[in-house]
Structure formats: C-alpha cells, structure tokens
C-alpha cells in the first residue's frame, strides 16, 4: 500500500473521534440508570457517577498511550494480549466480548422500558401496552434482532446521521439540565444509605463509561493521533461525566427517591415534573389553552425519543465492537478464524455479528434483571481496564522496538496514573454484588479454560512481562554506547584465532570505542554448591586464569581493548547469555569444532542456546587450516536469506583487518532459467542480488569480486566452490530458535562438509524472554 492510501484511511478528526466516543457513551446508561442508582444510594449516587468518570479518565490516559503505540483493531484486548501474553489475552478477549453483549442486552431492555414500561410510550399511544414485562422483553428482542440484521447486511450508516443523533442527545440532555435547574430541585437527604452504598453504585453505573474504548479501537483511522486521540478520549469521558452528575442532581432533586426508583423511564418521568410548571406559565397567557398535562407529556415524549435513539445507537456500537474483538482474537489465533469471515457481498464479519446478536438475544430472554446486566458489563470492563494499566507499565519497562507511542502519559503522571487506575478498578471490583462477581468469575474462568484447552497450543504466549521484570541492561552497562564483542574461550589452541576475528569486528567499530570481552566459564554440576566444588577444582581455576592471561597477551599484541571475565556457573550457555545481556553486547563470537552434537543438541550444548537466544549479532566460527582463518581468499555466500548481509559484513571486517593479502568474493548460485525471453538471465539476476547485498552490507564496489554460477543443485555447487577459498562466510537462513537447525540446513551443511574455515553469522534475534527466565535473572542480580 502506498503512503497516500494510508492517509486516506485516516478520515477521523478530533470532532469525529469525539462524537464516536460520545455516541456510545452518552445516553443509553443515563436514560436507564437513574432509577437503579437512586434506589441504591439516593442523591449521593451522583458521586458514584463522578467516581466512575474519574476511573475512566485514568483508563483513557493509559489507553491513549497504548492506542497510539499500537494502532491495531481490537483495542484493550490487543494491548493486553501483546503485553501480558495469550493467557490474559484470552481472559480479556472473552471478557470484553461478554461485557459488550451484556451491555447490548442492557441497552435493549432499556429501549423496551422506554417503549412499554410504566410511563413509557405506551402511556401516550392508546393501543400500545404500558408496564407489561412481556412487551418490554419482546421489544428488546425485536430491536436486538433488527440491529443484528442491519449489521449483518451492512446497511450503510453515515457519519452525518451519527452526528445528528449525538447532537440531538446532547441538546436534549442540556435542555433537561437547564430546565431542571430552573425548576429548583431540592435534595432532602443527600446520602441516605451511607458511603459503602455509594461505592457499590460505582460498579453499577460504570457501564455508562465503557463506550470511550471505541475511540481506541479506531486509532488506526484517526488523523494526527498523538493529539486527537487523547483529547477525544478525555473529552468523551469528561462531557458525559458532567452530564450524568447533573442528570442525577436534577432527577433526585425533582422526584422523591421512591418515585424515581419505581420508574421504568426515570428521565421521562422527571421531565414531566419539570415541564409541568411551564404549562402553568403558558396557560396564564390569554387565549392560549394548553392543558398542563400536555406540556408535561411533551417533555416526557421528547425524553422517550432521546432514550430510544441513545439505546439503539449504543447497542449498535457495542455489537460492532464485539465483532472487532472477535477479529482481533482470530488474528492472534486465540479464536477460530471461521468466525471472522467477511461476507463476500455485504462485506461484514457476519458470523461474528450473528454470534454476538444471538447471545444478546439469549441474555434478554433469560431476564436476569436490567441492573445485573449492567453490572456484569461493568465488571468485565473493570477487569479489562485493570489489565490495561498493567499493560502500560509492562510495555514501558520492556520497551520493545515496535512500541513507540505518539502520546505518552506525561512524566509527572507516570506511573501514578496506571497504578492508581489499577487500584481503583480492583477496589470497585471487590465491592460489587456477589452474584455479579460470580457471573463475572465464570466468564473469567471460561477465558482461562479457553486458554488452557485451545489458545495455549495455537497462540504461543509472547508476553513481554519477562522483559519488564528483567533487570534493565542499561543500568549495568556504563552507558557509553560502546561496541562490545563477547568471545567465550575454552581451548588454548583456538583462543588466538577467535580473539583475532573478534578484534576484526571490533576494529570495524573503532569510532564506537569498541572492546572485546573474553569469557571463560567453569561448569559445576547441579548437585554441588558452587563454592564447595571449587575447592577441589583448583586445577580448573588455574587453567581458567592461564587461559584468560593468554587472552590478555594476545589482545596486547593485536592492539585491542580487552576485558576478561572468569565465571563459575551451572551451564556455560546461560552464563554466556547473561554476560551478553549484562554487557549490553553487540556481537557474540563462538568457536565450533565442526561436529554435530549428540541427540539433545544441534551444534552443541553451549552453542545452541547462545546462538538461538542471544539478542545481538551472533557468529559461529569453525576454524580450518592455519593461515586461512578469516584471511586469505574470503568468500561470502550471497543468497537471499535474511542474514546474508550480516555474513557479508563479517567477511568485509575480516578482510579489512587482515594484514596478509586477502581477497573478497561474493558468490551466488542461480538455478538455470526456464528460457523465457523477457525474463532476466540467471547471471543478471545473480549479479543484481550481489550488488544489492554489497550495498546493504556497506561493502564498497571496488573491494570485492562478484561470482555467479548457474547450477541445478545449489548445495553441491556451493560445496565445490567453497573448496577454492580459505574462508567461507554464510548467513543464517532461518530465524527463531525453534526447529532442528540453529543456523539453517545449508550453512550447517557447508560447515560440516568443507575443511575450510567457515563463518556462520546472523543478525540480532528478536526473542522475548520467558517470565521464569526473567525472574531468574532478576534474582541473580
């Protein structure tokens, strides 16, 4: 995709992002919740709404950072899965999905209440039922089915319509607040149930705040996200919070608590009360005869229309968001992708939408109570946001290369925001009703079971928790940004050549204050304590000292900066990895005897882990006949492998450091072409490849010779050619430390089957640390 196309995808400015957030935030909850909130905590429930807003504000800050750092579909689920791995990913994925379906069901029942509840539309239109539970459920079911259908068929909604709905809702609520305030609400007893009830009510009303997440899931479509995204989020939280507090103030000040609690249509009932006095004013004008009741009814009807718009648009957004969570889970292979197929004609994720719709219908039919629906949705989202806060901290500490958020929580507020957010979420979760905790717990357990039975195998956990716990390498390194080459030495016969090759690499980075670090490890078996064994092993210690002393002599001779490290440890491999990490090394160079190891290992018990997991450049050298060890005629296998440029760079370093006459050849083998006329000839193809490679490796044109051969059997051709040179450099053909080969089969075959010096090289490995490994390292320091 070209740059300009990418720009086209970003079509949301601040206002659009804000209305999207507001569209799901505003309304639905506030039209339904006042009666439940008033029943639970009286007028003081406005404090609950305010507290919910604050908790959301914290989540909005953390989400803004994550969303701009990883603008991917799936929102919170994606961030948590990326940072904390697929275990928490499964919990949050299913949690959000369940939360959204519970919320949809809640909105739809609210919709039904405003149509057919006591004081609902049925009151004004004679033939419609009023106060019928069955009619409420039926209306909810029908509307949920219609919404599912509209989204299944991809019926087009326009931004303009969305804006009209949001604006009219804002207008209605502002009018409600304005007239309400004028009518002089009086609050009798502010906090009749005490503060614990107020705290418990936060959990109930939190459902009104789950909508702003939508902005995060649209991060990829927002223009100038570093500014617009956090601003839209914060605005989309603050606006409704203030409105909700105001609505609660007016509602509890206008109606008695009992009257409010009994109403199915709280906002409409309050509106009737507010509008009635207006009617008296109007009636005072001569010749204008409007019944008191009709003005009050007009106010109530307006609010009913608003409630209908609000509940429908919120439920619609929830269903679509749920389908996006499914998509993101499928992408990470936590969920079967079958569910995420996009309909060929309607271009909608129709299966995911249907699944969400069906569960929503079931939840409406089961009739667990509108309050419980709201609370379970809140519960699931509070868990999600708690983990989102953790994800921010983990990502900041692990700091993977790909994480570069355009918006960062300001230094002044970090880590206060994520920690306070986490604590607040947990505190609300803990004081929610037992039944809600039980239902939420079942959903969490389902997520865990799903992870164990399905996701664990398919979506290998790539959590960054390990990286976050592990000691920061920069804290140990001296911070000079030195180029460091680590060389494990064990054999006095090969020591010299390995150090010389390492020095060649160091010399190439002289301007970075390069140094070589020689490491020797005395291995002590598991059963014995490290110190105890050493007493009996004076001989080994002596040998180690001797080996490292020689290394220093060689270094002086070669004129390189060298440090030595003598270490006693359990396993040479992990000790070397630790040294690499501690020293913040850029390159590790090991020797290999040229024989494959016994069953358990590919190339050797030390080589496998070091080459497989070292986070820096890694080079393995099999030394051939003397005088040809990294000098003389050096040949690079210029293949298309990802690490071929690294191999070429190594070869270049060796040649320029060598003081004897050396030559550098880039060698490429091509299969014979199929004789197509317009196609490049194999020779041309090979030469082009070599030229690109030399450029990527930073080798100047004049300093190498290009050689292309055409052969059917690439391996044989490589082996034949190898015999003509002194040193052969070959890049790893595979990445990731999982399969049977460490470098790939071709490099390893060359290493085994030629008697020349063979240098296998690869670039930095991107492999995340396991939690256990990280904790072990942390404890070790």
């Amino acid at each position, binding site marked *: 995709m070209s740059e300009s196309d990418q720009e086209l995808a970003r079509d949301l400015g601040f206002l659009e992002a804000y209305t999207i957030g507001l569209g799901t935030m505003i309304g639905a909850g506030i039209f339904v919740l006042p009666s439940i909130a008033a029943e639970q905590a009286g007028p003081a429930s406005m404090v609950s709404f305010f507290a919910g807003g604050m908790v959301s504000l914290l989540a909005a800050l953390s989400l803004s950072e994550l969303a701009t750092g990883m603008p991917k579909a799936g929102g919170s689920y994606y961030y948590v899965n990326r940072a904390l791995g697929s275990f928490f990913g499964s919990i949050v994925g299913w949690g959000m999905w369940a939360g959204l379906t519970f919320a949809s069901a809640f909105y739809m029942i609210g919709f039904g209440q405003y149509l057919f509840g006591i004081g609902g539309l049925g009151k004004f239109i004679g033939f419609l039922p009023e106060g019928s539970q069955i009619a409420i459920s039926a209306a909810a079911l029908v509307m949920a089915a219609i919404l599912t259908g509209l989204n299944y068929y991809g019926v087009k909604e326009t931004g303009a319509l969305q804006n009209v709905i949001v604006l009219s809702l804002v207008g209605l609520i502002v009018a409600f607040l304005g007239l309400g305030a004028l009518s002089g609400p009086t609050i009798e007893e502010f906090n009749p149930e005490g503060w614990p009830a107020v705290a418990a009510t936060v959990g109930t009303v939190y459902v009104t705040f789950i909508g702003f997440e939508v902005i995060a899931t649209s991060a990829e479509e927002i223009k100038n996200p570093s500014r617009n995204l956090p601003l839209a989020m914060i605005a989309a939280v603050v606006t409704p919070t203030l409105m909700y507090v105001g609505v609660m103030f007016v509602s509890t000040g206008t109606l008695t608590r009992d009257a409010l609690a009994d109403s199915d249509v709280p906002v409409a009932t309050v509106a009737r009360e507010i509008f009635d006095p207006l009617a008296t004013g109007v009636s005072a004008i001569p010749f204008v005869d409007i019944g008191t009741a009709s003005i009050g009814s007009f106010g109530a009807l307006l609010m009913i229309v608003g409630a209908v718009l609000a509940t429908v648009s919120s439920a619609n957004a929830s269903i*679509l968001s749920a389908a996006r969570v499914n998509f993101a889970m499928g992408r990470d292979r936590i969920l079967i992708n079958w569910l995420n197929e996009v309909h060929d004609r309607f271009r909608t994720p129709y299966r995911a939408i249907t699944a969400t719709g069906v569960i929503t219908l079931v939840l409406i039919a089961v009739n667990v109570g509108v309050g419980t629906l709201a609370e379970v949705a809140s519960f699931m989202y509070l868990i999600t946001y708690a983990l989102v806060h953790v994800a921010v901290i983990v990502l900041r500490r692990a700091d993977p290369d790909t994480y570069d958020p355009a918006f960062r929580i300001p230094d002044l507020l970090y880590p206060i925001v994520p920690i306070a957010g986490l604590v607040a979420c947990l505190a609300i979760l803990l004081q929610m009703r037992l039944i809600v905790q039980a239902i939420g717990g079942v959903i969490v357990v389902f997520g865990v079971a799903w992870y164990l039975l399905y996701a664990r195998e398919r979506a290998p956990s790539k959590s960054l928790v390990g990286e976050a716990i592990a000691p920061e390498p920069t804290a140990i390194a001296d911070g000079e940004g030195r180029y460091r080459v680590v060389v494990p030495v064990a054999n006095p016969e090969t020591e010299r050549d390995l150090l010389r090759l390492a020095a060649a690499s160091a010399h190439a980075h002289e301007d970075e204050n390069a140094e070589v670090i020689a490491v020797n490890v005395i291995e002590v078996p598991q059963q014995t304590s490290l110190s105890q064994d050493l007493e009996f092993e004076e001989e080994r210690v002596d040998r180690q000292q001797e080996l490292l002393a020689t290394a220093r002599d060689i270094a002086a001779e070669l004129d390189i900066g060298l440090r030595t490290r003598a270490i006693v440890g359990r396993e040479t491999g992990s000790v070397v990895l630790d040294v690499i990490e501690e020293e913040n090394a850029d390159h590790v160079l090991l020797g290999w005897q040229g024989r494959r190891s016994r069953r358990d290992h590919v190339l050797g018990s030390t080589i496998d882990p070091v080459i497989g997991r070292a986070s820096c450049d890694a080079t393995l050298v099999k030394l051939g006949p003397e005088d040809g060890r990294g000098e003389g005629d050096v040949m690079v296998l210029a293949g298309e492998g990802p690490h071929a440029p690294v191999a070429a760079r190594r070869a270049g370093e060796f040649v320029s450091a060598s003081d004897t006459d050396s030559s550098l050849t880039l060698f490429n083998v091509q299969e014979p072409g199929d004789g197509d006329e317009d196609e490049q000839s194999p020779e041309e193809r090979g030469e082009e490849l070599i030229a690109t490679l030399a450029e990527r490796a930073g080798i100047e044109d004049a300093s190498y010779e290009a050689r292309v051969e055409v052969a059917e059997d690439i391996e044989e051709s490589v082996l034949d050619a190898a015999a003509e040179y002194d040193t052969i450099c070959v890049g790893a053909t595979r990445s990731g430390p999982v399969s049977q080969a460490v470098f790939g089969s071709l490099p390893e075959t060359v290493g085994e089957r030629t008697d020349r010096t063979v240098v296998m090289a690869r670039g930095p490995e991107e492999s995340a640390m396991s939690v256990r490994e990280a904790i072990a390292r942390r404890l070790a320091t």
Partner: protein
Amino acid sequence: MNDLLDRIVLPVAGPDDAAATARALSDRDFGSILALNVIEKAGGAPDKASVEQREAVAEEAFAELEARLGPGADIETQVRYGTDVAETIFDAADDFDATAIVITPRGGSRWVRLLTGDVALSLVTDTDRPVVVLPDVDSADPTGDDGPTDSGGEDE
C-alpha cells in the same frame, strides 16, 4: 486485442467475487488490469468491520485473482478508501486511465440491494467511461465451491 479491454479496472469485493470475475474474464483477451478493492468508510459512524480486517480480505481477493488469471496476466493491485464505493472506483479508473470498468454482478434480491446499496447500479448509471458487465460464468470449475448455491443462500 479488443481495445475496450485494453486497460481495465476490476473492482473485487472479496475472494469469491475475485474468483467469479476471473472466471468471467478467463476466455477473453484483455490487456492491463488494475484490480481494485474499495474499503468503504462510514465517515464518522462506526464501520461495520475494522479497516485492518477488510485490508486482509482485499489481500485474499487479490491473491485469488492472481492465482486464477495466472502469472502471465498484467495485474496491478490497489486498495482505496472512500465513503462512496462507486465514486472511488471512478477516481481509480481516472488515475489508471482505464478503457473500461469490468464488473461481474452476482445476483442479490432487490431488497438486499436496496438496503446495502447497489454499487453495480451506481457504476452503470453515473459512469463517464465504458462499463463492461460480464456474465458470471457458472463454470464447471472443480475448485469452484463458490457457485450460485452460496450466493443464493445469502439473498434471503
């Protein structure tokens, strides 16, 4: 070669659509192809599916088309974003300097078209260049599991 099919824009909605289009095109002479997938944006309202998901579908569609038309075909692929699909296709045709836009409509009841927007109709009625409508060949393609049974089921 037929001049009309010298430079064609081929809108493909998804893999099945791409397969049908490729079938329809297979026994004809044609020149350069711009395979185009338009990702419809709601322009402020929530989209039905995330952009990322639909980009994946576009890739599948292109792959399907390329596989069916074979390596010899001169195909360029492009994803565009727009609130009006037909309009976006016309823009692409302008930029590509296309001789024709080629479509292969695949049924669908009037109700569905009314609700979901009939892109084919807008293409034909608002166009400023030739629009070639190729019939969906109900081929005996053994791999074709996307025949009329599938689309027939979705029409309801």
